């Protein structure tokens, strides 16, 4: 079964700790202080908190069943992991053409341009039992559940 990350928007405080921990998780050192103060290229988070007034929610790749980015990718960098069903980006193959970004209906793929140009997106924290955004949300506003 594919696990999905859901946001319980009524409890998202807008603190953006999910962004912080996502960035650290996807840094080279995985050390929060080095990730922010020492790394080049500067890592970027793959989850984005949207805010309007007092409403806020965290958003990241939905790992769509019928994912437009998979079709749009011209190098085959974007692929679906067989085991987890997650849509992943093979950074070695990615050439930074941004086609995926243009077709993504949720706007959750980012340009990562500090080093080699690549598309940056949620990978459900490959290798972690629970994605770090879920684990570190102080208000349990981000949950990881089997697809409903």
């Amino acid at each position: 079964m594919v696990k999905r990350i859901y946001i319980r928007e009524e409890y998202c405080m807008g603190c953006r700790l999910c962004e912080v921990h996502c960035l650290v998780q996807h840094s080279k050192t995985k050390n929060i202080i080095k990730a922010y103060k020492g790394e080049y290229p500067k890592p970027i988070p793959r989850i984005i908190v949207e805010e309007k007034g007092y409403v806020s929610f965290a958003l990241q790749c939905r790992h769509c069943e019928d994912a437009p980015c998979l079709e749009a990718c011209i190098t085959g960098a974007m692929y679906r992991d067989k085991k987890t069903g997650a849509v992943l980006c093979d950074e070695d193959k990615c050439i930074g053409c941004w086609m995926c970004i243009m077709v993504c209906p949720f706007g959750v793929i980012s340009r990562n341009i500090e080093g080699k140009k690549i598309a940056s997106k949620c990978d459900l924290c490959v290798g972690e039992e629970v994605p770090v955004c879920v684990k570190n949300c102080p208000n349990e506003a981000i949950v990881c559940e089997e697809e409903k």
Partner: protein
Amino acid sequence: MAKRPTPTEFIIERDEGKCIACQVCVRMCSNDAHSYDPETDTVTSDSTKCVGCHFCETICPTGAIIIKRNPSEFKLNANWSAQVIRNITKQAETSGVLLTGMGCDKPYPVYWDHIVLNASQVTNPSIDPLREPMELRTYIGRKPDRIELTAHSPQSTEKNKIPSAMDYRLLTKLSPQLKLETPILFSAMSYGSISLNACISLARAAKEIGTFYNTGEGGLHKDLYEYGAHTIVQVASGRFGVHREYLEAGAAIEIKIGQGAKPGIGGHLPGEKVSEEISQTRMIPVGTDALSPAPHHDIYSIEDLKQLIFALKEATRYSKPVGVKISAVHNVAPIASGIVRAGADFVAIDGLRGGTGAAPTVIRDNVGIPIELAIAAVDNRLREEGIRNQASLIAAGGIRSSSDVIKAIALGADAVYIGTAALVAMGCNLCQRCYTGKCNWGIATQDPYLTKRLNPDIGTRRLVNLLRAWSLEIKEMLGGMGINAIESLRGNREQLRGVGLSDTDLKLLGIKPAGEAW
């Protein structure tokens, strides 16, 4: 000096080596104590704005923030403390009554801390609560003066049959009771003084544990009706939110006469907190101040109170207990006696250290008596008058731990209310700024940006954890005394001994000094 700069009570210490300028603190502080300067990509803090709630310190992902008290120190003086000087300075600038939140913070003696518990040695066996059953179940309500039974006509015709409980029928009509699985209830905290998420957390936790929460004078929000079986609905001097469905929804009704933090004083929810939802729940227009008068304008005597008690009993067809909450004042014992004689099924007594969302500091810190003395006085008085069984006694006001609970029960209480301890479980760090409505923990606020910080799933879990932990500890202490039911400890003051108390204290508490045998 015309107006001095705001005195800095706390110092925000930021470890620049650890600060990653992620701005979580900037986003989260409702007092705007932190700010980000994009020019230099640094976060800086303005300590004068810090109230000491420790939210930023708690949430900072690198532990870069430490909140310290500002050591700004005057010449050492046992009488003119920094706080006295600051209070006078503030009043010289504002000409206003000093306001505060939470309970009395002055160092009056805490009698709990001068009472020790007994345990079994040799002459009676202690009990291991993990192996043997241990009963904390408590019933709140009027107990009959005597029980009348009739022997059933035995169903079987066997001769010499030893009669069992089944063979008897209860003739006495029992009064309605609240059944508590542990002798701890959540104190009255109104929707308005705390957020709906906080109310929901209390209600769900009460349901899960098998106890009760109290609406305070805030009415019952529509989302809370489902927890009615675990709700004590309050009727106070403003009568806000009181209507038929409200009374019927609750498992019990409490008439609030007074509260420990501000005996003799009314309440005031400022209009800016009266949102659409609160307006509907309290039945007052949006944006109007909710003023609870100091007295009930229809209760000037025990006789008046009796009328209200029975009006409420009539309205609910004598189906639920009706109690009265008072603050512990000088005459608490005769007043409680009057209340019991007026027909109350329980009397809740709130002591000097009881909390509040807002009170004049001078009232909070100087009016009323400590709950320990009040429990002893009331229990004594009711026993002397032979009416102790006619009502249960709920003690409140600064109960901080399971040992406070067990000592309160041994002194004579049937159960305790906890308010501040429940708030602490939900996150509160007692910065005492509840009255500002800017509670960073999402508890004492109605600001939708702040209230969502309290996820009621988490709130409920933490409250349930607290009550489970205390209940376990109470069982351990009971077991140590060789007692297997909290009922057997109630009013059993022989299990208590005083340490460092005067003879008068010991006499008033009705306990012996440590070192004296039974």
